[in-house]
C-alpha cells in the first residue's frame, strides 16, 4: 500500500531523513518508535506533504501513485490521513464547518456527491459519540480552547469522519490520560483495523501499543530504520531504552 524507498529529506538544508525504507501492506499496523530528534515527525510531515520539507532522494509510492507528486489536499483525497502531534487552532471556524468543507472537498475530487448539512451533522455526531466527545464541541472553533487530550480526541473524530485508507498518527497518545488513551486506542482499531486499510503509528512509548497491537515495530534513529521486529520489540525498547537498540 505504502512503499518508501531510500528516502532522504532535509529542512533548511539540514538532512533529517537519511535513506529510510519501509513497506506497509493493507491490513497492517506499523509502529515507528525512536528517540527525540530521530526524524519521526519529519517522516509524518514528508508523507503529508508539508511545505519546507525537501525530499532530496528516494521515492514514496502510495496505492500505486507517486505520493511526492501530490499536493497535501490531493494526498488527503487519495486516502491519506495525518494525525497531528500538535493539532492546529483555527479561530472563528467551527469544527463542523471545517470538517464538512474538508470532507466534501475530498469527495468532490473523487467525484462523489457532497454531503448535505444534515447528513454531515449526523455523521459527525455519531463519530463524536463513539469517541466520547461532547457533540457541543463540534460547534466550537477548531481546537480553540481545547485541552491537549481534547485536541487528540478531535483528531480521531476527524479521522472517523473522513474515513481514510491510510493513517499516519504522530504521537496521538501524548497528552492523554489512561481513560482517554483507551478511547483513542479503541477508535483507531474501530476506524482503521480493516483488511483494506493500514496505519503508521509514530510514538515514543509502548503504552498506546497496549491498545493498538502493531504487526510490526520499527526503530527510527538518525534518519533511518535501524531495526524492525514484531510487537515484542516495543516491549524490549521500553525495558532497555533506545540507546542500546538503536545503535
Amino acid at each position, binding site marked *: 500500500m505504502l512503499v518508501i524507498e531510500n528516502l532522504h*529529506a532535509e529542512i533548511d538544508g539540514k538532512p533529517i531523513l537519511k535513506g529510510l525504507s519501509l513497506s506497509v501492506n493493507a491490513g497492517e499496523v506499523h509502529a515507528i518508535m525512536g528517540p527525540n530528534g530521530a526524524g519521526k515527525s519529519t517522516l509524518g510531515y*514528508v508523507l*503529508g*506533504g*508539508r*511545505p*519546507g*520539507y*525537501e*525530499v532530496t532522494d528516494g521515492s514514496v509510492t502510495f496505492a500505486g501513485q507517486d505520493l*511526492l*507528486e*501530490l*499536493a*497535501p*489536499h*490531493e*494526498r*488527503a*483525497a487519495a486516502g491519506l*490521513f*495525518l494525525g*497531528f502531534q500538535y*493539532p*492546529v*487552532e*483555527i*479561530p*472563528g*471556524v467551527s469544527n463542523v*464547518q*471545517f*470538517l464538512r*468543507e*474538508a*470532507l466534501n*472537498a*475530498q469527495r468532490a*475530487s473523487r467525484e462523489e456527491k457532497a454531503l*448535505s*448539512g444534515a447528513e454531515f451533522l449526523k455523521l459527525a455526531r455519531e463519530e463524536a459519540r463513539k469517541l466520547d466527545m461532547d457533540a457541543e464541541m463540534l460547534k466550537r*472553533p477548531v481546537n480553540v480552547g481545547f485541552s491537549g487530550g481534547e485536541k487528540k480526541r478531535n483528531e480521531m473524530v*476527524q479521522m472517523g469522519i*473522513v474515513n481514510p485508507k491510510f493513517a499516519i498518527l504522530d504521537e496521538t497518545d501524548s497528552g492523554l490520560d489512561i481513560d482517554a488513551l483507551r478511547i483513542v486506542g479503541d477508535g483507531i482499531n474501530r476506524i482503521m483495523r480493516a483488511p483494506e486499510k493500514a496505519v503508521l503509528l509514530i510514538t515514543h512509548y509502548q503504552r498506546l501499543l497496549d491498545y493498538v497491537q502493531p504487526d510490526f515495530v520499527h526503530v527510527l534513529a538518525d534518519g533511518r530504520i535501524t531495526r524492525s521486529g514484531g510487537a515484542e520489540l516495543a516491549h524490549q525498547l521500553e525495558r532497555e531504552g533506545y540507546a542500546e537498540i538503536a545503535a
Partner: protein
Amino acid sequence: MATKNAEAYAAVSKKYEWGFATDIEQDFAPKGLSEDTVRYISAKKNEPEWMLDWRLKAFRLWLTMEAPDWSKLNIPPIDYQDAYYYAEPKAKATIASLDELDPEIRRTYEKLGIPIEEQKLLANVEGAEPPRRVAVDAVFDSVSVATTFRAELERAGVIFRSISEAIREYPDLVRKWLGKVVPQRDNYFATLNSAVFSDGTFVYIPEGVRCPMELSTYFRINAENTGQFERTLIVADKGSYVSYLEGCTAPMRDENQLHAAVVELVALDDAEIKYSTVQNWYPGDENGVGGIYNFVTKRALCQGRNSKVSWTQVETGSAITWKYPSCVLAGDNSVGEFYSVAVTNNRQQADTGTKMIHLGKNTKSTIVSKGISAGRSDNTYRGLVRVAPTAEGVRNFTQCDSLLLGDQCGAHTVPYIEVRNPSAQIEHEATTSKISEDQLFYAMSRGLDQEAAVALIVNGFAREVLQQLPMEFAVEAQKLLGISLEGSVG
C-alpha cells in the same frame, strides 16, 4: 519537495467575475465639471429650483476647497475635467414599468444575480428558509433604473424611492434632512457629491413601523470615464426599524474611475437602522492598473433617545478606499456600532474606519474592525472615539485585528481617542498576525486546496463581522473574501 509543493500551490490569477461591460447607448453630460454640468444634471432630473440652488452653492464651495491629504493613501492626481459626471442609458424605462427596461440592462442585473423582478427572490441558501424578500433600487451609472416592491412597501407607509424621484415627490421630507448629517462643506468629496450627485436611494420609515422587508440598492458603474456620485438618505422615524443593504460592482477598465458617495442616516427616538455594505468595485489588476477610487462619506445621526445605528461593511473592491462610516450619538442612551472587514490584495489601498462621536448621556459604541492585507497592498484602520464634556456614562469598546498574508503588504492601526468626560469607559484592543503555515497545512492535509484553506481561515478571522450581515449576504460575502484573496498565498 518544496518545489513540488510550490507547483502544486500554483497561484491562480485573481478573478473579478463582475468585470464585464454592458453595451448600450448612453447619454452623457458634456465632459468636464462646471456650473453648466451641475445645471445639466439638475435639469435632467427635473429638479425644483431649491435643489439646483443647493447644488450650485456646493459647487462654488468646492472650488475653494482642497482634497484631504491626511490619510495613508497614495492618491495620484485626479483631473476632474477629464471625466463625465452624468451617464444614463438612452432607452430609459419609466421607473414604474419594469417591462420597458432595456433588455441589456435587465441581462446585466441577471448576470450580477440582482433580483430586480419581484417574483424572483434572492437565491435561496441552505438553512435560510423561508427565503426573505428584498426590495431593490437598481442604480445604473447615474440613474435608478428600477425600484421593486413599491406598492407593498407603500401599504406599510414606507417610502422607498430613488433620490431623484423623492426630490420631486417628497420635497419637504428630503429638504428637511438633506445635508443635515453630512453638511455640504463637510469635506472635499462630500462637497463635490453635493454638487453633482446623480442618483441614489431615499428611504423613510414612518413612526412605529418595522419595515416588512430588507431594502437594498445595487450600484453598477458601466460607462467609461464616468464618475458615480450617489446620494442616499434614510430617515427612521420614532420607534421604527429598517435593515438596508448596498452592493456595488463595475467593469474592468484600465483607467481609474471616481466614486464619491454620500450616505446620511437619521434615527429618531427608539428607531434602529441596520446598514450593510458589500463593496466590490473593480479593484484594478495585479499591477495596480485601473480600478475604482472609492471616496465615500457615510454618517449616521442618532438624534433620538435610545436610537441605534449599526454599520456593517465588507470592503473587498476598489483600487483606493477612503471611507469612515460614522455615528453621531446625540440622543441619550443611543448606540452606534461599526463592524468592518476590509480586504486588500495586489496594489489595493484602503484607509477605512469609523468615528463615534458621543454627545448624549449613556451612549454606547462598539467598533470591530478586521483588516486583511495580501500582495503589495496597504490596509489602514483609522478610527476616532470622541466623548463630549456633556456626555456622562459613555462606553466604547474597540477591537482592531489585522491579518497579513505574505510579507510585502502593510497593515496599520491609527486610533484617535478624545475623551472630555471622566466618567467614560473606553476599551481598545488591537492585534496583528500572519496567516500561519501551520493553519494552512493543517487545513490542506484535511483535503482543502490552498485557495479553500485560505478562504476558510480568513472567514474565520472575519467571523464576528460576517455574522452581523443578513444571512444571504453573509454567504455571498464569505465567497467574496475567498475570491478576493485568490492567488495571494503561494
